[in-house]
């Protein structure tokens, strides 16, 4: 009787350990953080006043797949225009002009001259083996008096292949100052579960599933082998 009870206790504790392990795996594979490329002030920074401008377009290359936001340097004007909103579009630089993201920036919400735009995880249709895709950030500036209104920051950059276009004219050797925000999943450094889930339908699009599947398989395999080993050893005894 006591042996049976002990067996049940051992079995239950094994199941519980496996379950706790599964919960840990799931929790760990759900942890995500934001990675931003901080745009530090530079001596060549210049302010572009939005008044009198219709559109500002800046192409940029994303270096990682999971783009989830942008931090744009924008300073409200000295004379506050109540509830000034600047429509923002994010598109592929090449191909048809389909909006990947369409937002309206409320200039008054800028904190320390920075507006953070967050959007659902952007799955860029690029080949992961060539992880670069060029996107275009477009600001549709509302009608304002010339040289009035908020300003955005641009700076000199002679190295970049990316282009700043203001009202259809290329502004050579300059770029808009902003920082892309990427989602970083810790578990990806061990196994690329985000990439595995990307674009897949239903539950297959949930990254922790892959970690849980691998874990469950290995647990069942290991548990079974240990069990069989015990059985064979006891038979040989």
């Amino acid at each position, binding site marked *: 009787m006591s042996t049976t009870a002990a067996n049940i206790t051992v079995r239950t504790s094994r199941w519980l350990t496996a379950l706790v392990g599964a919960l840990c795996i799931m929790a760990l594979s759900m942890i995500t953080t934001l990675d931003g490329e901080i745009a530090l002030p530079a001596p060549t920074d210049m302010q572009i006043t939005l008044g009198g401008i219709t559109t500002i377009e800046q192409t940029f290359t994303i270096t990682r797949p999971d783009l989830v936001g942008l931090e744009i340097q924008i300073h409200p004007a000295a004379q506050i225009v109540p509830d000034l909103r600047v429509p923002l579009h994010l598109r592929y630089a090449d191909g048809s002009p389909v909006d990947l993201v369409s937002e309206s920036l409320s200039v008054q919400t800028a904190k320390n001259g920075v507006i953070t735009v967050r959007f659902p995880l952007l799955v860029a*249709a690029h*080949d*992961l*083996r*060539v*992880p670069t895709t060029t996107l275009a950030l477009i600001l549709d500036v509302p009608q304002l008096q010339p040289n009035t209104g908020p300003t955005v920051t641009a700076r000199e950059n002679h190295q970049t292949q990316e282009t700043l276009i203001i009202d259809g004219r290329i502004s050579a050797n300059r770029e808009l100052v902003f920082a892309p925000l990427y989602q970083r999943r810790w578990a990806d450094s061990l*196994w*690329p579960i985000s*990439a*595995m889930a990307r*674009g*897949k*339908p*239903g539950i*297959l699009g949930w990254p922790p*599933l*892959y970690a849980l*599947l*691998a874990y*469950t*398989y290995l647990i*069942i*395999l290991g548990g*079974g082998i240990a*069990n*069989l080993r015990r059985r*064979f050893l006891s038979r040989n005894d």
Partner: protein
Amino acid sequence: MDTGPTSVSLSVASPSPNLALERTDRWRSLRDYALLRWLLPLALLHGVLYLVIAPPWQHYDEPTHFEYAWLIVVHNHIPTMDESDPQMRHNALESMDRFRFYPPGQHVDLTDPNPPEIGMNQRYHPALYYMLVALPLRLVADLPIDVQLYTARTLSLILYTLIIAIAWRVAVVVVPDEPLIQLVVPLMLLFTPSFADMMTAVNNDVLVNFAAAALLLGCVLLVCGGMHPTSLVLATLALGVGLATKRTAVILLVPYVLALLWALHRTPLRLWKVAGVLVIGTLMSAFAGLEIGHAANGTQILALRPWLNQLDSSYLRLSLDSWVRSVSDFEQTNVLYQLLLTISFTSFWVRFGWGNIIIGSWADWMMVGICVACAVGLIVQGWRSRSQMTISQQRCIWIFLIAVVLGCLSLVARLHPLPSPGYIPYIPRGRYIFTVMLPVIWLIVLGWQGLFPNRWKHVSPIIILGLWGAIDLIVWSNTLIAYFYGVG
């Protein structure tokens, strides 16, 4: 009236020897199935891993195999070679593009109202497999095409899981007193990564492989248990399903006939008599049907005799003459056979996806080493164990061996007739003989045991199982991930 309860209590208190024996048998049978309770979820999870890791469309001809089943669902009849659905193709191409099916930088034109082909038309195959796939597909016909594809893959997953159960049952029947082999054979089949990859794809090979495994179980049941109706029905049904699925199942006819013969004639046959009948039969058939002819370049080759040629052209329509001429033209085929050996061997063991994903050359060479060593070990084992094995076991191993040899010969046969000089023919891949994967695994396990002295014989399968498990782990956790997801 009074005797009733007394007799019951008596029977409970001291069971008759027969009842006790029956209970012991039942208990043993339940304990036997305990292994299956572990194997089935393991196989299912292993299959699920392969199923979800490979992105949509990333198996041999998966788009067109899927298209065949999809057309059955939508048109409610078996499609002709020319039938297609532009919207389905558009959706499939869009999905293929989205899941990076095409090389970097290459995209399909999705605005074209007449989308291009999505692969090699598969509608020359019999419809049985596709009708089966159509059943679950009907339930998800309104959902996105990716969901439909994964649903179709799920049928393969179920068949893969069942094959592992069949492999276990074959082992229990062939070696009832060797629990380690009963464990190692199904696990090695489970761990064979190329097989798991194929068995979780949308492809009619999946059903042929399942039918072949079921047939093998029927055969060993017939050989070990005699002409039992269940075994006969299982073997016959499995053969029927195989033949109605793909022509690669034709090689299964030989093990089936052999098993029937051995089920009827259960006493030993003299080896020299069997060999004599085979040799004389082959020579007589060859003499009756073939003659010496000449190739275009003047070399001597074999050709059909006029009567057989006439029969072929008027009835069989197999182009036998060009096939025989091609096979016997050794000058032209010599180099091709080397190519066939390399491509079919590597694709049998260590190629994935569309045959483009490799583990590394070390794995190729390791498999060569294991196979050569196991071939030697098989001879040693055959000699060493000839007196220890029962006649049924010997016959089962003969069936495995014959199935594997026929599989290899079928690959050679598939190469012919060769095209005109200057054109490179299609070199068949190893997947065409996944039908004999289970017999191959058996021969590997037996051969491996033959490499070790008797006192190591019982632990040697653990070593090969460990190797297999390690390769499998490398494949699903690294090789496939590195290829499909760019890291690993």
